[in-house]
């Protein structure tokens, strides 16, 4: 019998795929921003430890508020703080922010374009705790809210840069969080993050990956592997799901034979839907394969097991590109 993998406790660092890592990139970036910005405040709903915001609490205890397990109130309090001129970063898990606090994000924050920043842990299959903890439909829900910026960063470099961009953006932001020891995919020197902009990471002609979140790391690895097999694969990284960079997608789609979208989220309502809408609106027809999660609840299990089982691995992207996976 094969060796069994076990569901890990929430505090455990995620697998890193052999790349160098940075510890708590969000929390450390927030501390750095708050050094000069006295209007930055931090909040959590009893998940400070697991959302990497404790460095901020330790640096600025007077500007940190733990409201207890109460996500509706977390967002309401953040909205109230924002109305006094402050810029709140509120952390919890994506499931609780997007499901429990939806009305508060929509009405208390976004309706008035308040600068509340929701930082949402455990995106998609980064936890083995099953449907209660896996935010598999959060960005799909959040992108339905007018004026809300939705970001799914790829790595430690991008999380730090997106945190800085969120801090200066005048309106509300929902950002997915990768916590703990987060891999470095992008070289930090000269790295530039602009809300609403996709980044062409690699040009290619045979197949084009449009990816978001940590799936971009896998898309880059897949493109590398495909090149060795003589297949030219491009990678367009779309960290901002709203506003979506339709122009970049259309340009990219025009240069490749077929598209493969890759996301750590359900494909219905996720990046795949955004790309399909974009192509349709532009009158383009293109073969489109969708890597992502199915329209169902996902069981408990170890993260590597679940990611393999649901087809989020580099091999799955390669197989989609070569036609080995329909």
């Amino acid at each position, binding site marked *: 019998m094969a060796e069994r993998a076990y569901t890990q406790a929430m505090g455990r660092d995620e697998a890193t795929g052999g790349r160098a890592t940075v510890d708590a990139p969000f929390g450390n970036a927030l501390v750095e921003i708050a050094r000069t910005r006295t209007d930055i405040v931090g909040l959590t709903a009893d998940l400070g430890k697991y959302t990497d915001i404790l460095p901020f609490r330790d640096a600025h205890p007077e500007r940190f508020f733990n409201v207890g397990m109460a996500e*509706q109130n977390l967002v309401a309090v953040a909205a*109230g*703080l924002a109305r006094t001129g402050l810029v709140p970063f509120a952390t919890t898990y994506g499931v609780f922010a997007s499901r429990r606090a939806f009305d508060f994000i929509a009405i208390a924050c976004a309706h008035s374009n308040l600068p509340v920043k929701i930082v949402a842990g455990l995106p998609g299959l980064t936890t083995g705790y099953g449907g209660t903890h896996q935010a598999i439909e959060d960005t799909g829900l959040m992108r339905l809210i007018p004026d809300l910026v939705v970001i799914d960063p790829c790595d430690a470099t991008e999380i730090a840069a997106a945190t800085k961009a969120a801090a200066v953006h005048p309106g509300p932001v929902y950002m997915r969080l990768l916590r703990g020891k987060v891999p470095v995919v992008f070289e930090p020197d000269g790295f530039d993050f602009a809300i609403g902009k996709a980044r062409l990471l690699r040009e290619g002609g045979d197949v084009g990956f449009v990816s978001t979140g940590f799936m971009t790391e896998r898309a880059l690895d897949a493109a590398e592997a495909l090149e060795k097999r003589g297949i030219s694969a491009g990678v367009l990284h779309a960290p901002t799901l709203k506003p979506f960079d339709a122009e970049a997608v259309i340009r990219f789609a025009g240069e490749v034979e077929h598209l493969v979208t890759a996301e750590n989220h359900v494909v219905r309502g996720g990046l795949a839907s955004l790309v399909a809408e974009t192509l349709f609106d532009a009158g383009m027809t293109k073969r489109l394969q969708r890597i992502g999660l199915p329209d169902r609840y996902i069981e408990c299990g170890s993260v590597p097991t679940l990611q393999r089982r649901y087809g989020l691995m580099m091999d799955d992207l390669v197989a989609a590109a070569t036609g080995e996976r329909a």
Partner: protein
Amino acid sequence: MALANHPPATADLAALRARAKSMRRHVLAMARGPGQGYVGQGLGISDVLAALYFHEMRWDPADVKAADRDRFLLSTGHYSIALWAALAEAGVIPLDELVTYGADDSRLEMSTLDTTPGVEMIGGSLGHGLGQAIGMALGLRLAKSPARIFCELSDGEMQEGSTWEAAMAAGHFSLDNLVALIDCNGIQADGPVVLDMEPVADKWRAFGFATQEIDGNDLAAVVAALEKARATDGKPHAIVLRTRPGQGVPTLLAREKAHFVRVEPDEWDALIDELDRTEADHG
């Protein structure tokens, strides 16, 4: 512009009663246009709003965004009719605009949006006010502002769980710059309060609020309770207000208690006449 050094040491109750009566006239004038509206709630809360806007709160009608203003949050957005009456009485909204209440493209919406001057938050999704009041109270305390937050919410609204999420936090953060005003008028959308919320005051006490319970249509009692709620002893304040929907207009007071009052076109003159002849306040 500097804020007036409110509240004054003593209240001019006769002047406040005149304000409340004038606001009630505005409420009837507004509802007359559409022939309906949240008239009961508007009449019921008028004494409280008169005491806040014309006595207790430090604010400037000419500068409704002043940083250190006291803030009134109307969590029950559908009570907008009362807020428009207060803001019109204070000169923030022109009196001749009141007839547009509830009309297409009017700033005087049936349920508040924050785009109208003097509105501090979007009310109406019930259970939103107190949490936002806590955020404001924390933010103002951080800024060392003397401003206070007055947050209205209602008996029916207490059924929204987020009310209690907020109540827990207010006590925890020792927000003595926060006053929760709980309008208990006994009605909600489906009629008389559908889920017994009593004992209301005990609940707020248990959540750490310095709690008073008064007749919310007794202006002297309202003024006294607000004065007591200035205490800065580390506890948030709650004032449970027993109000009567339709207060000041006997015909409406006697009518079946309804969430949404409809009035026949030929009734209005008589109702206004009744209001003018009635001592609205029980003080």
